[in-house]
């Protein structure tokens, strides 16, 4: 019994079918609870008013946008090293979720920035690196969909993910150097001094938990779909072959 057992698609599907309902339920609970607590149970900020409440979506989404890429990196490495198909498919499944999170973070950031900074968009290091991250996600997904053969696609996108990660870090420092911006520093860290006030902190944690669970549930669900799509493909190819129409790969 080891973690690698779940590299077997059948076992993976069986496990994910058992876990998924719980994940959905927990995610819904955390999200509804956290958002409701955040929106109705906390006071308005003395300076920012009610706009401060956008952090309950903005911060978790931004967090998951980065962690989504990180997950893809780990999955790509597992695919390159141990060639487990589920891993490659999980990376593929995570990309659209990650790009959505990035988009949510960018949009909520713009909505918040309009009243606070007086502008929808500023070429600020953090915003810019998120835009670059968004582009990386788009390129990654475009490459996946441009290649017919699934194994080739998995190999190429994995290498792209590795190279992209290096450059994402590099870009992060480059844009810092390039422009000192408006964005406030970290509002969440283990260092208590820097944290937001407790009233906002606890509902935010619940929301983050909700986003993490939602992310996991979506990725597991989509991975299951990818596995089934591949099976359908294989079945169809075998059927075509038997009909004497030649393999359609």
């Amino acid at each position, binding site marked *: 019994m080891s973690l690698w057992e779940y590299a077997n698609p059948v076992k993976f599907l069986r496990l994910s079918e058992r876990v998924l309902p719980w994940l959905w339920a927990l995610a819904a609970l955390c999200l509804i609870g956290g958002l409701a607590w955040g929106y109705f149970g906390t006071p308005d900020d003395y300076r920012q008013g009610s706009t401060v409440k956008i952090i309950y979506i903005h911060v978790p989404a931004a967090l998951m946008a980065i962690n989504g890429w990180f997950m893809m990196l780990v999955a790509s490495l597992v695919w390159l090293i141990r060639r487990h198909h589920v891993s490659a498919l999980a990376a593929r499944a995570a990309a659209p979720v990650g790009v959505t999170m990035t988009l949510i973070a960018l949009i909520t950031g713009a909505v918040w920035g309009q009243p606070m900074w007086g502008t929808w968009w500023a070429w600020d290091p953090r915003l810019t690196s998120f835009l*670059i991250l968004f*582009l990386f996600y788009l*390129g990654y997904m*475009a490459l996946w969909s441009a290649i017919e053969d699934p194994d080739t696609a998995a*190999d*190429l996108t994995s290498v792209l993910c590795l190279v992209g990660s290096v450059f994402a870090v*590099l*870009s992060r*420092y480059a*844009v810092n150097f390039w422009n000192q911006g408006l964005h406030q520093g970290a509002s969440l860290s283990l260092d208590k001094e820097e944290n937001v006030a407790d009233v906002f902190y606890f509902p935010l944690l619940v929301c983050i938990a909700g986003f993490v669970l939602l992310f996991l549930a979506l990725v597991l669900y989509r991975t299951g779909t990818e596995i089934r799509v591949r099976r359908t493909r294989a079945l169809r190819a075998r059927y075509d072959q038997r009909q004497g129409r030649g393999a359609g790969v």
Partner: protein
Amino acid sequence: MRALLVRDLRLALRAGGGFGLGLAFFLIVVVLVPFSVGPQPELLGRIAAGVLWLAALLACLLSLDRILALDFEDGTLDVLATAPLPLEAALSVKALAHWLTTGVPLVVAAPVLAVLLNLPVAGYGGLVLSLLLGTPALSVIGTFGAALTVGIKRGGLLLSLLVLPLYVPTLIFGAEAARRSAAGLDAATPLLMLAGISAGVLALMPFASAAVLRVNLR
């Protein structure tokens, strides 16, 4: 290796289109800029360094799919992959050939076009130096993108989408160095960062390029 380099250079020179196209594109972008932002000399002087860098980057991007696509079509790449020369070395040579036919002409042409954009005289050295240090990185990263998309029909647009985010750090440091030297400031830090990027990319990127090319030739 030398044979491969000479062959690539000769092909680029004789095939037409390739060698001059990047330069022509560079010129076109530079000519279009005053039409789009207005012909005020002070304004042009202020943005000249950035515009020249951007134009050089775009000209480089335009010629990327030429690096491998033709060789893929006529089967030369398969020969290269099975030749005793490691694929990493072959790709480095191809990147070098791309740089010699695209990057170097851009570096040479940049001061001439800088006159058109009214770049302050103090900035010429910084501009040339930054392009000289930065364009090899563009070629090497571009070779990776070309290797990634070589098997895909009409991969040109995809290639630009994949390569552009990878170009961002190079562009930032390159343009910053050129801008600082044009403004008479110390440009050592961005120049060093640029040199660092080029060196790192030169050392590591051929392995990634060769890895994806092997997958594509499989």
